[in-house]
């Protein structure tokens, strides 16, 4: 018997036959994997063959919330999309803010499991626990923001939506699942899997409450954690004031801000695309996701130039970098427009920008013939950026179709996959491992390919006085610790940004008060480690090996040519062995039987 936090039911949707059924949430799994990322991954591990074609009907998608979704726990409205990802075949989990997660719970379900494939485009309308399959032929081809509005008009204006855009429909390998029209589950191509099932979206509206096991203990934990965040200079200072783009000047000043497809890593024009400039030039107001006291979200508008009058959400730090420095572009309005387009088409803005940068280098070096692009592709050209994103979103020509597969497949097509700034085919984000050593280990070992939000070592290496960014010692331990913490945190439905102030013990307290399960910081981290190892086992069975735990050759071999990190390369081997040993894995990156037994995963090995 679960006392609180969960609704206790999972909705299973068979898209082939258009039938649904309800299942009880398993209490033993809730205790072992929390919910969200952990519980959802367990479902995929149990039900999906790791070698299945990710775009085949046999693949499944779990849309999952955690036990803190729908409460006043700080920044607790995350929703997670878990599936076998098409970009690289790994276990893919991509999470998003907005309001879909809390509203899904109010329909009475903790999670939705999507199975099979509909013969025609449909969307789901889940209204107070009643589920309808609705025709979506008229929505197919519509942009994400249009789909959000149309689906709400056809159902209920105050409902919350999930939708894919044209990128997901056309199964781009870097397609997002979008929530509330502009919040993204943005990595690993999860949108393509939803598109492969002919599912345009899901609309939810419910009237049920979310209870917690211990009212007074929970109220006190909420008060205490909100107070910690209110006193934190990042969560209550930099992020609300400048958004995540506060990082542009900070990271560039360390010379770890990859420029022109990482040919360099210091961008002299960084301040033209900084959070400070965005605030002065484009910010309309801040936006908070459900129950968030940080409100890093930017509501913006373009006030001059050829995109004048366009408005939307963002850009965040990562797209400002991928469209900006990575493409050699300092026109913030063009960058903002590229970001709006990615949201509308449903494209991963990190991968999209990095793919354009890769195309620009392929073109400048002569590897990609000029005739293959409908316009000249040169670093620093804002028009080439915006038109490339359009081409990628619409896939009307070979150029667009090629770019929509991401930088790895693009580079491979022209015989130069080494020019893809990716790990396990997923483009890395806006921190150069040559200048921030620990983040390279995180990119190399992340279970979904290069990623900063599996274990955000930047918090320890740059944003707090802790570890020297250029040393290797201690980075393996901090990477493992943050990876485990984040896996558990993601499973509760809480935003990563709370960890600027909150520690494992604070999160364990919220989780424990909500669910009634005993949990302290040690147990919380152990659950995280269990989830990490479970993801790893899936990846090994899908065919990945230790050889895939690496970085682009450029990062390992080509020194940065200017700025504060001039001369640096990343020596991954100085950290990787220690990391495997801390994880209790062999040198081949395979978990040992002993460690799996300690974690209670022996049944999965």
């Amino acid at each position, binding site marked *: 018997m679960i006392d609180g936090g969960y609704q206790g039911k999972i909705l299973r949707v068979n898209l082939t036959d258009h039938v649904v059924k309800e299942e009880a949430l398993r209490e033993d799994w809730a205790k072992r994997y929390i919910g969200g990322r952990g519980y959802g991954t367990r479902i995929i591990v149990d039900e999906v063959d790791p070698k299945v074609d990710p775009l085949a009907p046999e693949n499944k998608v779990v849309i999952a919330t955690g036990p803190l979704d*729908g*409460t006043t726990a700080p920044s607790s409205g995350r929703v997670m999309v878990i599936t076998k990802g098409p970009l690289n075949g790994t276990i893919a989990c991509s999470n998003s803010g907005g309001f879909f997660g809390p509203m899904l719970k109010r329909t009475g379900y903790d999670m939705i499991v999507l199975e099979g494939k509909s013969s025609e485009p449909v969307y789901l309308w889940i209204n107070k626990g009643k589920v309808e399959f609705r025709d979506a032929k008229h929505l197919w081809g519509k942009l994400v923001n249009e789909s959000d509005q149309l689906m709400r008009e056809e159902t209920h204006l105050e409902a919350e939506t999930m939708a894919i855009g044209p990128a997901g429909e056309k199964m781009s390998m870097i397609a997002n699942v979008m929530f509330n029209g502009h919040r993204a589950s943005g990595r690993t191509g999860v949108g393509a899997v939803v598109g492969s099932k002919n599912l345009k979206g899901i609309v939810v509206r419910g009237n049920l*409450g*979310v209870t917690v096991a211990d009212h007074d203990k929970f109220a006190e934990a909420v*008060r205490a954690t909100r107070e910690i965040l209110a006193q934190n200079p990042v969560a209550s200072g930099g992020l609300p004031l400048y958004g995540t783009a506060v990082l542009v000047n900070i990271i560039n000043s360390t010379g770890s801000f990859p420029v022109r497809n990482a040919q360099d890593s210091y961008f002299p024009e960084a301040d033209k695309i900084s959070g400070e400039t965005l605030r002065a030039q484009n910010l309309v*107001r801040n936006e*908070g996701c*459900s129950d968030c006291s*940080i409100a890093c979200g930017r509501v913006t508008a373009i006030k001059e130039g050829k995109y004048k009058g366009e408005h939307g959400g963002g850009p965040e730090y990562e797209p400002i970098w991928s469209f900006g420095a990575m493409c050699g572009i300092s026109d913030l309005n063009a960058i903002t427009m590229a970001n709006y387009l990615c949201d509308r088409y449903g494209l991963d803005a990190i991968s999209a920008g990095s793919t354009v940068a890769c195309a620009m280098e392929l073109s400048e070096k002569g590897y990609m013939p000029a005739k293959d692009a409908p316009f000249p592709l040169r670093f620093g050209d804002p028009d080439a950026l915006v038109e490339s994103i359009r081409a990628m979103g619409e896939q009307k020509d070979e150029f667009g179709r090629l770019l929509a597969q991401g930088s790895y497949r693009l580079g491979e097509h022209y015989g130069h996959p080494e020019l893809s700034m990716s790990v396990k085919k997923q483009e890395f984000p806006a921190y150069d491992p040559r200048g921030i050593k620990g983040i390279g280990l995180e990119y190399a070992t992340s279970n979904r390919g290069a990623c900063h939000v599996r274990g955000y070592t930047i918090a320890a290496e740059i944003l707090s006085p802790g570890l020297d960014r250029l040393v290797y010692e201690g980075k393996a331990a901090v990477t493992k610790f943050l990876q485990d913490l984040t896996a558990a945190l993601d499973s509760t439905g809480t935003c990563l940004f709370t960890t600027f102030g909150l520690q494992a013990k604070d999160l364990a307290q919220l989780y424990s008060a909500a669910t009634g399960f005993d949990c302290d910081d040690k147990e919380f981290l152990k659950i995280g480690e269990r989830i990490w190892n479970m993801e790893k086992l899936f990846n090994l069975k899908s065919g990945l090996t230790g050889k895939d735990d690496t970085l682009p050759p450029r990062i390992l071999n080509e020194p940065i040519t200017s700025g504060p990190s001039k001369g640096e390369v990343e020596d991954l081997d100085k950290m990787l062995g220690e990391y495997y040993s801390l994880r209790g894995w062999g040198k081949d990156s395979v978990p040992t039987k002993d460690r799996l037994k300690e974690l209670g995963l022996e049944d999965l090995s």
Partner: protein
Amino acid sequence: MKVLVLEPAKCTGCRACMDACSFEKTGVFNPLDSRVNVITFHEDLTFVPTVCSQCETPYCEQVCPTAALVKNTTTGLVDFLKEKCIGCKQCIVACPWGSIRINHLGKEIIKCDHCSGDPACVKVCKAEALTYVEVEDVVSGKQQGVAQTYRRIAAEMAKGVNP
């Protein structure tokens, strides 16, 4: 008397006020049971909080056939006496602000009572879009804001600039 001041321009749309209100009043998180409500306009991402204004001449009180809604001249609040309510819902129709709400089951009338002087919604509003302020301070605060404009103009004039 203190009042709840709503400033839509500061609202980030996080709706924590709604979750906090329902938890305070019912022990369960359910925005449909919240006395305060935030309307989101998705197209331009505008967020507008709404709550009972505790009117001096409340229409809800006037239409209530059982005196379940009564202006309390001591506290300044419009009190809702649940035991007198017959559920006719005329107060919902009468309220010009839509601030008399109905709970998640569509049966019980709910309205804001300022949580006995310590509103739960205000405690979670980091953006200060909801504040709880003495009514005369609201007025003087507004006058201060307007006066600042004149102060700037006066400073310009002192520099010989004709505004």
